[in-house]
């Protein structure tokens, strides 16, 4: 049910979207309908082509695939940006379909997002390049500043929401962010956010699926990584490549 509703609401042609946006009725590119809460789904993205999003809804029974940190529009921007870092191609799914944005959401909600094991005492001085980042802002806040920055930049320079841009334009913005040219906040440049986005995207593609990404171990499958095997003694001795069906930590539960 929920999936169906999402699909119908995603089907918005761009002229209409632009119109609604201009009348202030969209949030992060999502059209606001009557039942606002029901519109939000983890599988929404920047798709504007109605043919792409119709079809059979996915039966997604994973209760973990829901947001615990992001607002829906933050989630959408993250999903769109991560997809540019790790795009879908003929090898297989990209960040979006691997649920990388769900992974990022969960990480930022975790103690790691609050820098629990990082040294946070001041003073915070500007480092030399060899001294590692010296940032007072917590990871979760840096990330939020970053995705807000992407959208603000997009609106300012492209007159559009980030998630509605063509991939090439999104890439150009991400390159600006990578170079650190954009100021996210006094004393916080965009390169720190970009590094975190890149790292989290790769983690989300390849970490054990229990963390919310690497959906159905597809990240591992693309690179023929077997996940977790208790013994690989036989395989490592073989001259030819041995492709194993991946296993995740769930397979170790109850042993």
């Amino acid at each position, binding site marked *: 049910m929920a999936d169906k509703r999402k699909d119908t609401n995603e089907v918005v042609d761009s002229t209409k979207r632009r119109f609604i946006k201009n009348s202030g009725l969209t949030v992060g590119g999502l059209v606001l309908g009557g039942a606002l809460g029901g519109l939000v789904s983890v599988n929404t993205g920047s798709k504007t082509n109605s043919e792409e999003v119709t079809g059979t809804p996915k039966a997604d029974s994973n209760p973990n695939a829901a947001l615990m940190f992001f607002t829906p529009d933050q989630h959408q921007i993250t999903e769109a940006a991560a997809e540019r870092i790790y795009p879908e191609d003929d090898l297989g799914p990209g960040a979006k379909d691997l649920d990388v944005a769900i992974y990022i959401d969960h990480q930022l909600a975790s103690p790691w997002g609050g820098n629990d094991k990082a040294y946070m005492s001041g003073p915070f001085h500007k480092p*030399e390049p*060899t*001294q590692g980042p010296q940032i007072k802002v917590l990871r979760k806040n840096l990330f939020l500043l970053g995705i807000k920055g992407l959208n603000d930049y997009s609106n300012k320079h492209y007159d559009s929401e980030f998630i509605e841009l063509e991939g090439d334009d999104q890439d150009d913005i991400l390159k600006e962010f990578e170079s650190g040219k954009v100021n996210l906040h006094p004393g916080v440049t965009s390169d720190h956010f970009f590094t975190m986005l890149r790292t989290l995207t790769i983690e989300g593609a390849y970490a*054990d699926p229990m963390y919310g990404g690497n959906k159905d171990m597809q990240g591992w499958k693309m690179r*023929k990584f077997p996940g977790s095997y208790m013994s*690989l003694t036989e395989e*490592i001795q073989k001259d030819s490549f*041995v492709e194993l069906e991946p296993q995740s930590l769930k397979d170790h539960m109850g*042993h």
Partner: protein
Amino acid sequence: MKKLPKVPVVIVGMGWAGGIIASELTKAGVEVVGLERGKDRQTKDYMMGHDELRYQHRAELMQDLSKETITHRNNEKMKALPMRSYGTFIVGDGVGGAGSHWNGQTYRFLPYDFEIKSLTEKKYGKNKIKPEYLLQDWGLTYDEMEPYYDTFEKMAGISGETVELYGKRSNPYPTGPMLKTPVLEEFEEATKNLGYSPYMIPSANLSEAYENPDGIKRSACQYCAYCENFGCEYGAKSDPVVTVIPVAKQTGNLDLRTHSNVIRVLNDGKKATGVVYADTITGEEFEQPADIVVLTSYVFNNVRLLLNSKIGTPYNPKTGKGTIGKNYAYQVSAGESTLFFDDKEYNLYGGAGALGIEIPDYTGDNFDHKDLNFLHGAGIRTTQYGDRPIANNPIPSGTPSWGADFKKQSIKYANSTFKVKSQGASLPHKDNYLDLDPTYKDEYGMPLLRMTYDYTEQDKELVKYMSKITKKIAEEIGADHIETQEEQAPFNVNKDTNTHNTGGVIMGADPETSAVNTYLQMWDADNVFVIGASAFPHNSCFNPTGTLGALSYRASEGILKYIDKPGSLV
């Protein structure tokens, strides 16, 4: 502060050094208190251990940097700043220390290492060692070290093969070498063609089931690939938790107190009288009086505890006087060549922390240095640790680090790349040292350790030289594309990857130039023993633990002698 009853011996830190001291003393009937800031650990904790994110990237087994870290600057002109997150230097925490998440490459240093100054001067003349490089002999020879190496290797069950070019062994390795994989065979064949003598890296990941002299039985390594940065779910990787600590516990003489962070060593100016520690859960502080204080809290805290407790004389780089913090050294890992194969896939997803092959030909003084502007050398090697996917995304240079091309290339080469690496020695320099940071503090308000360190001219020359060798070997192996890193970049505290820190409380025969004698007993306080790689006067091209393990056995012998007859042991 609560004052506890006095004990004969208190040990600070329960990693390899602390574990060995605890087991040797308790077996001899001495009652020992072991204070460890982290938690207790056991093999069955690792059933969920194959978790790359948690153990490697979120540093599950490592020191919590929110409580303490180090500060770093490349030279005195810079302001030292804290390493806020990992980073290099993934220091251990909890019972077993870094001995739980280490790789297990377990070498002996060379006879040349122990007498590096005398042997270099003898062979190349007095002027070969430039005055700013503080090379010195260790105060004992390889032959004197040999029995302790032998004991350590038997306790841990080290798997390996005898190497002609290295120091004489009284016994073969207790277990045979690790399995050879196709990648290692390619290195072997190529280096043999070039006239070198490859050997399998000595490994603490057991190649076969083994029972050690203490009656501890362990099973063989399964090459599971979750080894470096992880605990071993089989107990196959030698770890204090599966070797020396259970032996000490079984004697009934070890009072192991976890969650106990030592803040300083109490002393009366001549001798230590005990330690102050905090319960990390409640914050309550205790005074633990003791006859003997043994510091085994890793290089960094060994130095920091002495400085914060005002024991010994801090090193002064301007005058060269003082010893605590002197001769800090690291290692140089640049110079590697990466081989990319377009149509070959290897089973690189499997492997073990100490699975690798190496040539001895460019280590130490095994090649002529007459016309070279550096001393010592490097182990040139190919390893197979298991290429886990978050950490290993090899791309040929010129490929963007994200986007369509990144994805395509990193997946293409995921199982089709390996390296010929170089691990080079690091010689002490007068400007590289450890002291207390003037600004940053730990959670108890004690100054953090400040590291002033950069690679030296010697290091850079060594890397240039070794990069030519790795390239030559890579070309002999043959690949579609080879990339060689020819230069050593400046030391970067958040990028460089190895935790082979040495020095700061160095050993020697002369109290003017060393902090501890060859039993690792302090010259300035004879009931304080400071044990670990902190005792190394320089760092060799090998991983440190075999040598610090051997020194721990020697130190435990010294402590037992001291208990019988207090006073200086030399």
